[in-house]
Every structure is written in C-alpha cells, then in structure tokens.
C-alpha cells in the first residue's frame, strides 16, 4: 500500500497563467486610505461571494507609502476576505512589499500592457515546443433553480446551470456561463478579466449581461433575441448577442 501511494505522489513546479483580479491604487497615501475602505465596503455589499478568498494584485501608481500605510492597505483588503498576494508598480517601495510578505511583480502595469503593440509572432518556432495538456478546472454545475436573491460564483472555472436563473438572482463566473433554462437574472462572465468568456442560455430574458467589465442592461438587449436561445460574447470591446 505505502509503496503504491508514494509512487503516485509527485511534486512539480511550473508556471501557469491564471486571471487574477486587480485593485488599482493611484495617488494612495495615509489620508486616502478611507477611499479604499469605502470601495471595498461597497464591493462586499454587492458581491460578498465574489470577494471571499479572491486572489488580488495591487497595482500602485504615484503612491506615497511607508511601512504603516502599506500594512494598512494589506489589512483592509484582507479584512474583506480577499488575498493580496502581489504588487505591481511603484518599485521604490519594493522593500515594504516584501516586509508584508507580498511579492513584487515588476513595474509594468496591466493597463500599460494592454495598450502595448502586439509583438509579431514567430511563424516557425526555433525550438521544439512541448505543450503540456492539462484538464482545465472542472466547471461548477448547478442543477437546481437559482432563485431571486441567490448569488452563485464559479471561481476560475465555467458555470453550468441546468435550470432557470430567476429575476433578482446573480450568477458569476471567471469563465463562461451556460444556462440550460431561462436566464432572467443577472449574468456576469469573465469577471476577473477574461474578455473571451461567453454567456449561453436557452431563453434570453436577462436583467444584466456582463463580460469582463462591459455590460448590457435589459433595455439594451435587442428585441429579436428575447426568449430565444442565444450566446453573448465580446468582439472589439463590443457586446454581441447572437441567436444559437
């Protein structure tokens, strides 16, 4: 018995790409800490399920920090249940970050990277490429109706609902959302920054559709897709709903 179990165990260290939420702090200093507190309080009122245990990167620009202020920022974020594990920006405070056990990821901010010109991809790779396939995180599957007032969040995976999502219910996912039933509530896909996420449903009647920060409210959903099976996705920063 012991032999087999030790043969199966293994430790591998490898890189992985995961989308992570960012908190962008601009011009933060001791006097401005309350701004962060207010914002976090708002957030936890709106989406408690989303923030609990959420890994967070702090993006600093033009901040005036000392050890106490940075410790304050970290504890405010931890207080709402999120985990600030890394910082980008403001390299002059690197020592402060490390003193709090937070990794420093360099000076390049997410916002800058987005506008950076795309590098031309080499058409033929010089070296043999080894692609390690790995089963993606299993989807969260819900088989019962999602009722008004309920909130469901699939962290770092897709969300599949084999029932209706009622008015006043909220379903969220870091990936795509699939509703095999009527979607009458609010659906938010790619919430931690995945613009390729999509929302599928058998009957479109949503209060709100959101993908990676862009959204459509009920009034802006085109008439011809209402009550029909369709998918919602983003193309060139625009929300598009197509019949299936």
């Amino acid at each position, binding site marked *: 018995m012991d032999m087999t179990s030790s043969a199966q165990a293994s430790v591998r260290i490898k890189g992985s790409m995961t989308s992570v939420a960012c908190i962008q702090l601009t011009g933060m200093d001791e006097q401005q800490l309350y701004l962060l507190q207010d914002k976090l309080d708002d957030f936890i009122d709106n989406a408690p399920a989303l923030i609990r245990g959420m890994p967070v990167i702090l993006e600093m620009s033009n901040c005036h920090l000392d050890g106490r202020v940075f410790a304050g920022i970290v504890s405010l974020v931890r207080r709402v249940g999120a985990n600030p594990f890394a910082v980008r920006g403001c390299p002059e405070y690197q020592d402060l970050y490390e003193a709090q056990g937070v990794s420093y990821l360099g000076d390049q901010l997410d916002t800058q990277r987005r506008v950076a010109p795309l590098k031309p991809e080499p058409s033929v790779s010089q070296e043999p490429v080894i692609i390690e396939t790995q089963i993606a995180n299993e989807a969260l599957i819900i088989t*019962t*109706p*999602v*009722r*008004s*007032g*309920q909130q469901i969040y699939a962290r770092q995976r897709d969300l599949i609902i084999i*029932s*209706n999502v*009622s*008015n*006043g*219910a909220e379903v969220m996912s870091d990936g795509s959302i699939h509703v095999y039933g*009527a979607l*009458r509530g609010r659906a938010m896909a790619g919430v931690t920054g995945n613009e390729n996420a999509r929302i599928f449903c058998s009957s479109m009647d949503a209060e709100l559709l959101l993908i990676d920060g862009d959204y459509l409210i009920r009034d802006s959903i085109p008439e011809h897709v209402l009550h029909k099976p369709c998918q919602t996705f983003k193309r060139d920063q625009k929300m598009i709903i197509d019949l299936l």
Partner: protein
Amino acid sequence: MSKGKVFVVTSGKGGVGKTTTSASVAAGLALAGKKTVVIDFDVGLRNLDLILGCERKVVFDFIQALKKECKLNQAIIHVKQISDNLYMIPASQTRDKDHLTHEGVKEIISQLAEEFDYVICDSPAGIEKGAKMAMYFADEAIVVTNPEISSVRDSDRILGFLDSSTRLAEEEGKRIPQHLLITRYSPDRVESGEMLSIQDIDDILSIPLVGVIPESRVVLDSSNQGKPVVLNSQDPAGQAYEDVIKRLLGDDVPMRFTEIEKKSFLGRLFGGR
C-alpha cells in the same frame, strides 16, 4: 411510534393567504382523522386564533412555552368546535420575536412531532427571523402565491431560502419537498390578461402544484366568523382546499376551478354572474 410530519406554510409576501391556508389545511387534515396542531409563528401579529375562532381561549402562547414560563400543554388550545383532532398554539402578541431561538423552537417542534400526526407552522411574511424559524425544522413546505408578479417573485426568494436554510438542507444537504398553492385565482381575469396564468407561474417557480384556490367572497366571510373556509363545502374555495388536503394525503385529484366556467343558457340570456 411514528414521527409526525412538519409542514411550513410560507410565501414571502404578506396578505396572500398564508394564515387562511394554514387554518384550512390544519382543519382539513384534522377532519380527515389526523391529529394536527398548527402553530402561529407571527409573533406580535397574532391572527391564526381569530381565523380558527378560538381567540377567547388564549391563555398562554408559543413564546411562553418556548421560554418555559408555562408547560407546552398549557399553550396548546384544543379547537374542539372544528374537530376533536385539531389543536393550535397562538403567537405571542406582546413579546419580541428575538425570543425565537433555534434550540427552543427545535425542542417544541420535536415534542409536537412525537404527539401529533401533522405539525403546521404558519409563517409570518417577510424573510426575517420569524419566517426563517418557521421553515427551519420543516419536512415539507407549502408556498402560497397570488397570480401577480410581486407575489411570485417573493415566493421565488422564499424558495431559495427553503433550498438552503432548513435543518434538512444544512445537516443532510437535502431539499425539502415544496408544494405550490395558488390562491385568489380568477380564470376570467387570467383570460383577459390581468392575472398571471398557472403556466406563467410554473415557468418562474417550477415546483409541483398542490392546488389552485379560486377567488371567492366566502374566504373573507369565513375568516371573520372564525371558521376556516375548508369547512364550507358548498363554495368552490372550500372544495379546492378539500382537494389540497387529499393531494397532501397522497390522492391524485384533478385540478378544478382553473378554467372559465361555461355560463348556462339562462345565464347567458340574462347576463350577470
């Protein structure tokens, strides 16, 4: 000794007929030979004693029994004038609902379930403590809904709580069976588009239908007289409640009063209703 079944009658929205339904279901089960007790959980807004016509017999109440200021038996009123099998426990009119504790409610309900075949918990409106306590120890739920959108949405919210916030859900991960009861249904008004149809309600709530009670003037009158409407077997509403009892007891009875009644020849000739 078999354990009695605990039902909660709930809705979310107020004024849809929870207490009327609790009284009629309890009275109907009692008349069908089941020893039944119905508890008013609406602390501070006591009503069930009026509907059952026993407001003059109230001495002790649910909160007092819960706080052990009296024996449980002293708080139970025997509603003999309706049935030898019918008992009720009134809500406290003066106490605060903060006295409703998990341990206290659990102790009383488990004692009642030993002694009675059915324990009916009449929930207050809303989603506060009283409503949550009324549903927590239930084995099954009757969700009362009127055919209008706000009532249906509130019922949807309550169904969410029934899925997650009962003892069976928390301890055993089970959903308790849920029965939909539509009250104040009027086929004429559904036809003219003023009211949601049974189908519309089912699309949203999608739980099994246990009955449709037609709108009837008799309901108000019955409440005022302290006689549950189920006792009025002449009236469609009373008959519809009788059907509900049969379905709860496992009989397969077809739905009545859900279609527009065809007027007789004379009726058509002279108009009116």
